[in-house]
């Protein structure tokens, strides 16, 4: 995982956060303004801007100012974002198996 993260530079770190994964998930369905995102994730504009700028630095997201509204959409680094997704998937699977293990342990007597 460590090697992977290095290879992926910012992309993996950007995706390691649940809110940021949520933002990408939302943008996968279409563009959204900073205000839209802040209201969806129930965060302050400052808070959401921080996440957006991390995603933007990683190339996973681009923003464009249209009038007074800053609009966000998925970025051009498709390969990198996919690699980051594969790494995030790997991490998710590992966590799931940890939880499966814990579940099997706590239901042990019920066979």
């Amino acid at each position, binding site marked *: 995982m460590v090697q992977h993260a290095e290879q992926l530079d910012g992309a993996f770190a950007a995706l390691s956060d*649940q*809110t940021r*994964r*949520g933002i*990408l*998930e*939302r943008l*996968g*369905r279409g563009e959204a303004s900073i205000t839209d995102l802040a209201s*969806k*994730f129930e965060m302050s504009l400052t808070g959401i801007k921080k996440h957006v700028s991390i995603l933007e630095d990683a190339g996973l997201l681009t923003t464009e100012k249209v009038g007074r509204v800053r609009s966000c959409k998925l970025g*051009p*680094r*498709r*390969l*990198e*974002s*996919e*690699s980051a*997704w*594969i790494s995030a*998937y*790997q991490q*998710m*699977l*590992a*966590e*799931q*198996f*940890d*939880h*499966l*293990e*814990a*579940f*099997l*342990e706590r*239901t*042990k007597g019920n*066979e």
Partner: protein
Amino acid sequence: MTHIVAPVPARALLSTPSDREVRMERIFNAKRERVWKAITEPDLIAQWWGRGNRLVIERYEFERGGHWRYVEHSDHGDHGFEGRYREIVPFERIVSSFEWDGMPAHVAIQTMTLEQLADGRTKLVSTSIFHTVAERDGMMHSGMEGGANESYEALDRVLAALS
């Protein structure tokens, strides 16, 4: 799946096969029947799949071709995952597609196999292969247009042969 670009080695389009494969192996301290139940009964899946987040199983058609859809709900948002079953061999093997709403149409095929060990434990092996056109698109951005162009040329030849 039909590999239309078969004349071009698919591997050439990817940096390494391992970059698009996730393999994970775990040994659980439980008999195979119990592990099988935990990974196939919706009430039980809901208790671990969401990794501590509330999981809503929106669809669960556990049969070949059947559709599954799970949504993880957390304080930071909802995450939808879905797929369809390609193969089910009771107590042994499940092959299914896997997709996350955040990366639409970036489909992985996940194969899970269970093996009963002599000591009463069970080995679970999960192999997921990510197979998407985005990898090819990505190569265009990373300056490896050559490989992508070759594959487009191969596709052109195939399309020409079909017309």
